[in-house]
């Protein structure tokens, strides 16, 4: 097969000791900067790109591969250990990952995240190697109507996250939806619910809400509920990664996460929230022990982490085959490729096959290097949980404020952060689940925008949602996702 030959040539030019060193440097830097709160993958890549400008194209691409996957992976570490996700893709990881860390199973959570990222990254890169053009043209069939249907599907499957009390779950969801109303209405450019505050025009950044509700809220709640005689964090059970049981429970979620994450990453309007939360709710649905979710189920870390990395590889499909940057990170990468005379677009594979295949080979190498670097580091990171509580929580508050401020250089965001912390504390005190609020904030504006776009294009004719086959199929799937659990619950004695 021609693809395999081309890929072999790519590896031939990418594999040398010097290049492997660049891959290691890229992964190290990408992970190190990606771990810092508030510095997401896009900024990490933008900050580190100047380093590659003085290199030859092959070395530079090898380093890109490392930086890209490293930055994507870095966010999971702070999610698991400190409940402080650095980017939207690791929000789902934080739910069960941090619960595991508090039970002393931080090393297992970090290991399943690292291996899951590697497995997903490798499988997704293989899919990228062989099916890119096919997938890219399929993704173009997604219009506003289909995206609306997709967000409805995400809403429905996420009902698994609502928890025991319907009133509490729905309240949380509506709180998120209401916060999502704030900001510029993208379709008209008019401000909504911004109360004349310019900083609110772009809406409330989901990361601020997440860090506020989870990390700051947790800190406040500890003091509120327990004061000075709070129970200690459970001592570390093990520093040595995953048990046999952990492996048995992780491998299926890795594969399912990859299968969910990669195709959704290919869609030009993706983002990493939908694939990671879809993976989370699928794992919960399929689990024999759904009650463990939210209290340290390893499947809840393995699935979303795999989905996140697979989506990251998926983003490269429209970028390389169509020249479409579908995320901020991809836009930064696009600029970097242009630096080397690569003009991503429909002709890229035919005009510069040498560079493209070197880049794809670099992705495999960067991904493998990520595992090599991070598995030994897991033991180091896991010890963070041994830090005395006053210092740990003091540090979490400082990191939360630092990360929030560096998102937009806005002091108002820090005020919002601590306000969200107070809300998070109150929600915890009354057993209101936090995750539906996050989903509402992310999915609400997306669903509304795509719904109105679809109607604007059809000149107000609502039949687009049933006459377009793909859209109708997705909406039908949403209905099934909503009805099935009710039916099953009814039959159960």
């Amino acid at each position: 097969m021609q693809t395999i030959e081309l890929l072999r040539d790519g590896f031939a030019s990418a594999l040398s000791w010097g290049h492997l060193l660049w891959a290691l440097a890229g992964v190290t830097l990408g992970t190190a900067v990606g771990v810092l709160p508030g510095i997401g993958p896009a900024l990490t890549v933008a900050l580190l790109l100047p380093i590659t400008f003085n290199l030859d194209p092959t070395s530079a691409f090898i380093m890109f591969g490392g930086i890209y996957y490293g930055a994507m992976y870095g966010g999971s570490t702070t999610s698991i250990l400190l409940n402080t996700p650095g980017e939207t893709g690791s929000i789902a990881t934080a739910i069960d990952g941090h619960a595991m860390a508090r039970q002393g199973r931080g090393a297992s959570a970090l290991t399943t995240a690292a291996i899951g990222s590697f497995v997903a990254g490798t499988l997704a890169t293989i899919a990228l190697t062989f099916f890119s053009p096919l997938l890219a043209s399929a993704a173009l069939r997604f219009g506003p109507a289909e995206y609306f249907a997709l967000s409805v599907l995400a809403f429905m499957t996420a009902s698994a996250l609502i928890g025991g009390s319907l009133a509490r779950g729905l309240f949380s969801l509506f709180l998120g939806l209401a916060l999502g109303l704030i900001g510029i209405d993208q379709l008209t450019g008019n401000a909504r619910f911004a109360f004349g505050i310019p900083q609110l025009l772009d809406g409330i950044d989901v990361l601020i809400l997440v860090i506020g509700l989870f990390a700051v809220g947790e800190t406040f709640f500890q003091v509120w509920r327990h004061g000075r005689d709070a129970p200690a964090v459970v001592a570390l059970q093990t520093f040595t990664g995953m048990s046999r049981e952990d492996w048995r429970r992780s491998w299926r979620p890795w594969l399912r996460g990859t299968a969910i994450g990669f195709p959704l990453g290919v869609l030009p309007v993706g983002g990493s929230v939908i694939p990671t939360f879809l993976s989370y709710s699928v794992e919960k649905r399929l689990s024999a022990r759904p009650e463990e979710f939210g209290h340290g189920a390893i499947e809840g870390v393995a699935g979303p982490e795999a989905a996140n990395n697979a989506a990251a590889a998926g983003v490269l499909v429209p970028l390389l085959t169509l020249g479409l940057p579908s995320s901020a990170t991809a836009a930064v990468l696009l600029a970097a490729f242009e630096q080397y005379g690569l003009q991503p677009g429909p002709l890229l594979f035919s005009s510069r096959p040498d560079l493209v295949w070197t880049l794809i080979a670099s992705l495999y190498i960067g991904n493998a290097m990520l595992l090599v670097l991070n598995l030994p580091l897991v033991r180091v990171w896991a010890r963070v949980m041994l830090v005395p509580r006053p210092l740990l929580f003091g540090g979490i508050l400082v990191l939360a404020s630092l990360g929030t401020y560096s998102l937009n250089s806005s002091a108002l965001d820090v005020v919002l952060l601590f306000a969200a912390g107070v809300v998070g504390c109150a929600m915890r005190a009354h057993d209101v689940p936090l995750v539906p609020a996050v989903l509402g904030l992310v999915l609400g504006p997306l669903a509304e925008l795509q719904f109105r776009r679809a109607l604007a294009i059809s000149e107000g004719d609502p039949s687009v949602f049933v006459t377009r086959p793909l859209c109708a199929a997705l909406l039908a799937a949403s209905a099934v996702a909503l009805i099935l659990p009710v039916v099953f619950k009814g039959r159960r004695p």
Partner: protein
Amino acid sequence: MTRRACAALVRAMVLLGCASGAFAQPAIDELRIIAPAAPGGGWDQTARAMQQALQRAGLVRIAPVENVPGAAGTIGLARFIGAEAGRSDVVLVSGLIMLGGIVTHRAPVTLHDVTPLARLTGEYEVIAVPAASPFRTLRDLLDAFIARPESISWGGGSAGGSDQILAGLVADAVGVPPARVNYIAFSGGGESMAAILGGQVSAGINGLAEFAPQIEAGTLRPLAISSAERLAGVDVPTLREQGLPIEFENWRSLAAPPGLAAADRARLESLIAAMVKSPPWRETLARYRWLDRYLAGDAFVRFAAAEESRVRNVLRKFAEGQSGGTAPEPYPWIVIAGLLVTGGLLGRQVFRSAGARDTSRSPRAPVVLLAAAVALHLLLLENAGFVIAAAVLFWLAARAFDPRHPLRDGCFAVGVSVSAYVLFARVLHLSLPAGLLAGWL
């Protein structure tokens, strides 16, 4: 084992240091470039291209880029005016889209509040349709548009941006009220391109550089370009030769803070003049397919004023039909009603179970201490600077958990705050308020 993490960070610092290091001894030590947008967009790319050109040409030793995103650049503009007034070591990337943003978002500040330096680049806009579209020429498209304006959906970038402005100018030129343009705003180049390629919209408007690869590959059919004359190597008819008297470009420019001394202004202007002639900048222009539209001094000021009135005019016409025409959106009210209903239900449940709930809590002192920590932090952040605010937050919060180790907690508070500041502000060049310790760190 933490040594390994430290080693990684040290390596990061060394590499970042090398990358930003200069080749000769430059005349200017540091010039900060503010991109009022998130990484990845046109302003961010312009800022980073300038960073490269200035450093490589040896004109400036170090030129860190700061991103201050939000509201079409008007957040960055407001901050630039407020925080940097009178400074001569910082510039702001701006341009046509900011004019649109100022109008659309009724920003309290305008480009009259900064010191204009120069126009740097321009990009012509192209109107295109997917290869499979029934529209072969601009005439075909406009005939359908004139017959029934709403039936043609125009896909492009965010509302109030250059793409929508061009759609409005075209509508105005053929006698259709801009308010009747069925403009579908997408949030970025990639998203709108996908909608155009996939045939989700009837026609698309975007910059030439973004469309060029698709045009070369034959996946898009260009119908018109907004330049005055045909461009060399770009076989696309202009709007003008097809009977529409429109010339339009998405220009990007530079501004300095308000209240700049005349000598400082002259120094910055000559720096920019040197940069646009430098080989690294020429290479960048070619690579990104940006046009060199360097224009400085009074000529630029006059140009910007003319553009401003044109943008205001078009965007006002867009808004004219909207205020009366569209019904209030039901969605926000559904959400608010849902929030009130579920909130009421929850409140009732909580109220009813309040008696049964175990309300005993530990003494109030820790809660008060923590509240004080947060309040002081917010108060000090922009006044006394990040380091002091963070140290106070850390120390008081730690004491809320356990008051027995004030000295240990204090040492960690200072250590964590200072190292976080040094890492973010000094190594990564991200903006954090330096405050009172500005001279020390």
